[in-house]
């Protein structure tokens, strides 16, 4: 991590050589350790320290961006020249009113935990060794990854808006394997004390051994499904890319276009971007320096609007939503803290209410580009797919392919749990998804089982 003083000093040197009408810059430094294991063996162990600076300049209303991982004066000057050159060759941003220049206070959020930052690879290896030994006693082998990181994020602009935050993050994934069956468990948090790798091992083992030896197959068709948070999170990440971003809205491919204010989902569906929820993965500002706030995306089934960065907010005549996670990125706003409102049920109640259905732990390789206007997606299940009959889990199912319109599925959500879980994703160091387990009627399974 880079301290606030040092970060702001580097950013000040970058802005000093920007020589532009306006400029802003972000400096992100990450110190992370990732312990990967497979076959109950720690086979990859990585300690990565990185820092990068992105400088954005505005020249005659046009924007240019350049980034570097070296911060000496010569490199910063070259980076500034690259950014200015880009701006000189760009067209003026439509209706652009300038970079963010208010000095609103950012929310006070607990984002850093010193004990998490100090967790050593050695301590993690000791925990993994205990988990491996317990797995051997239970007849399972483990695969997974255990990441801890400490990062600093600093922004500064020629308008004097300066932000700084330190954040810690822990993300553990455990897959238990036994006799061709697998089970999955994952947790992420700002604090390592909230992620117990040994408990994850037990949860994954439970999933790997549940209904072991009771295997059934299903012909393709529509079935009620119970989707656990990792499964729901993966389709919501795609929904973000094809529907929530400023770019998807502006280019017309989002199903939000023409539907603002209309009820397209069930009344029990409320989805927001919310980095201010202390129970989620909080973060106080975006990289343009705007304070984070709760941004409704779908509220009680009604489409509210996309997330947009400052440039696209001006272009679309909207209010910026503080969702710029890369300066000058082509998404022009991305929902990095997808927050699905809870319901009132328990997972057991959802299962008990299902006459014939499928309980899905997680999805694999979802793709949401089939037909963006209906959010038609496809994917497969993995690491724990179970048959529910007459309210009881009666058998393991092989992995199944599904093809389903999410716009339709969101009208058929029959129940949501009160408990929600955080789910991380590989491309998002700031947040992820927090979601309940949901029950959806008539999920369309299209492919025969394969494994």
């Amino acid at each position, binding site marked *: 991590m880079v301290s606030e003083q040092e970060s702001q000093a580097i950013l000040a040197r970058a802005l000093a050589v920007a020589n532009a009408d306006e400029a802003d810059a972000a400096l992100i430094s990450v110190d992370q350790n990732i312990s990967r294991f497979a076959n109950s063996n720690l086979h990859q162990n990585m300690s990565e320290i990185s820092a990068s600076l992105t400088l954005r300049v505005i020249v005659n209303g046009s924007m240019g961006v350049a980034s570097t991982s070296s911060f000496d004066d010569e490199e910063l000057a070259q980076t500034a020249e690259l950014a200015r050159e880009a701006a000189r060759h760009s067209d003026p941003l439509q209706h652009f009113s300038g970079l963010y220049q208010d000095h609103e206070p950012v929310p006070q959020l607990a984002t850093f935990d010193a004990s998490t930052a100090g967790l050593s690879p050695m301590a993690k290896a000791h925990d993994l060794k205990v988990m491996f030994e317990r797995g051997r006693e239970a007849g399972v082998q483990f695969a997974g990854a255990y990441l801890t990181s400490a990062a600093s994020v600093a922004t500064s602009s020629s308008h004097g808006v300066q932000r700084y935050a330190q954040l810690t993050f822990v993300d553990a994934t455990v897959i238990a394997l036994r006799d061709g069956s697998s089970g999955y468990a994952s947790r992420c948090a700002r604090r390592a004390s909230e992620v117990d790798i040994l408990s994850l091992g037990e949860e994954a083992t439970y999933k790997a051994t549940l209904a072991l030896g009771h295997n059934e197959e299903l012909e393709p068709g529509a079935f009620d499904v119970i989707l656990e948070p990792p499964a729901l999170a993966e389709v919501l990440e795609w929904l973000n890319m094809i529907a929530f971003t400023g770019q998807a809205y502006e280019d017309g491919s989002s199903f939000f276009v023409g539907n603002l204010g209309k009820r397209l989902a069930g009344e029990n569906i409320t989805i927001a971007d919310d980095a201010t929820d202390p129970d989620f993965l909080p973060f106080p500002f975006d990289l343009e320096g705007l304070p984070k706030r709760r941004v409704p995306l779908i509220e009680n089934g009604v489409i509210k609007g996309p997330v947009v960065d400052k440039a696209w907010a001006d272009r679309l005549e909207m209010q910026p939503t503080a969702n710029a996670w890369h300066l000058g990125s082509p998404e022009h706003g991305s929902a990095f803290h997808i927050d699905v409102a809870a319901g009132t049920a328990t997972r057991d109640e959802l299962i008990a209410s299902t006459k014939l259905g499928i309980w899905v732990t997680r999805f694999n390789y979802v793709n949401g580009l089939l*037909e963006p206007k209906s959010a038609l997606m496809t994917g497969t299940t993995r690491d724990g797919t179970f048959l529910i009959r007459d309210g009881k889990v009666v058998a393991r199912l092989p992995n199944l392919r599904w093809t389903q319109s999410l716009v339709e599925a969101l009208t058929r959500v029959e129940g949501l749990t009160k408990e929600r879980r955080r789910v991380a994703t590989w*491309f998002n160091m700031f947040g992820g998804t927090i979601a309940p387990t949901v029950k959806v009627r008539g999920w369309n399974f299209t492919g025969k089982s394969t494994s």
Partner: protein
Amino acid sequence: MKPTRAQFEQALRSLRNPALRYADIRWTATHQQHVRVRNGEVDALSATVDRAVGVRVLIGNGWGFAATSHVSEEAILQTAQRALEVAAASNIASTADVVLSDIEPHVATWASAFEIDPWSIALEKKIEHLLAATEPMRGDHRIHQVSGDLSCYRQEKIFASTLGSYIDQTTTEMGGGIEAAALDGGEFQRRTYPNPFGGDYQAAGWEFIEKLDLPKKAPQIRDEAIALLAAPKAPAGRFDLIVGSSQLALQVHESCGHPTELDRAMGLEISLAGGSFLQPHMLGNFRYGSELVDIVADATIAGSIGSFAYDDDGVPAQRFHLIDKGMFVDYLTGRDTAPTIGRKSNGTVRAESAARIPIIRMTNINLEPGATPLAEIIADTKRGIYVETNKSWSIDDLRLNFQFGCEVAYEIENGKLGRLLRNPVYTGITPEFWRSCDAVGDRASWQIWGLPNCGKGDPLQTMRVAHGAPAARFRNVEMA
């Protein structure tokens, strides 16, 4: 800025641990420039430079890897010490013996070839080229968006190991493409050339962009995007399917390239990407495809982005069969995985930069051309579908059950291409699909496609790979 050989050797000498079995150190400087125009104006213009140093050590049976973006002499030495600490931690929970395949030390310098340095072309010219390529696609009210992309990439890399290797490699690449997006009511269609997601990529210079001739293709792409709006939906059911070169390249990537990665087969990538249905006991005796199916890994093809001289283990680039006349015969391997199947590394270990650990990656994984011209394959098809250009992709964690969507399809009736069809989606099971291959296009329909965004590893690494493929026909394939 580039570390000296003496600095590298000093860092390797600083690794004082009696149990040290092996160590290597890499430095990379990665330069990228991206230009994107949209609807007649510059939409994005960015430049990045990333430098990193990574040190990998093997202590006993524990691997340790440490990396930093600070590339000073002091930071390199500190990084080497961190790698030792991480390896010591690994030893606590390492339960498998690590065996490395033998390798000779190499001292070499290599650079990919280009005629016109991508960075020698002024930004104005790049922008003008894209505007000229996208302007012909505008004008019709149904064309909602047109865009064009140009990408320049250069990675300088130095590798040194305790075996005495010292290898300096530089790869230069260019990529580009155009896209038209049409919108009419609730129907949205995209058409791209030569490939989606930024186009096609080669280890080449500006001459590759001139060869693509984007402006010439623009009117056709516009017309096809508009025509797709009103085209009938591709039918569901079982059809004889002819898959065009670029789509078949992705099919090779997903259903042959990934499952032949030995680390996946060994379960080492299960936590994120998944495993493989191709297990070691199937080597040499599993019929993957029909006798017409020859799939080769070839890291030596000049001008392709999956090529290099030495991998990140310091093993020379190689050419070998993965699938030989339909039989599964080999994996992609590295020094620490090949011995588990009794073989030597075939040199496919790479990292996206020195900031990340090297893992098994595809190189150029190619379906070899057959003997039949594409026109003859079509003429020989009584009732079928022709599909081209990928739109969506999904495959299960063992690489068996796949589903691909394409930008366009055409009916084939009595040996002739017929109506344009929208939203074609085909699905299948990998070996069943490849075994149903009964015609492979000749060299004229064969093309190599650069794919600069293959994701694997945790943290995810984006690797630059490529696939050569002709068109080919598959019998009785399920269309969704």
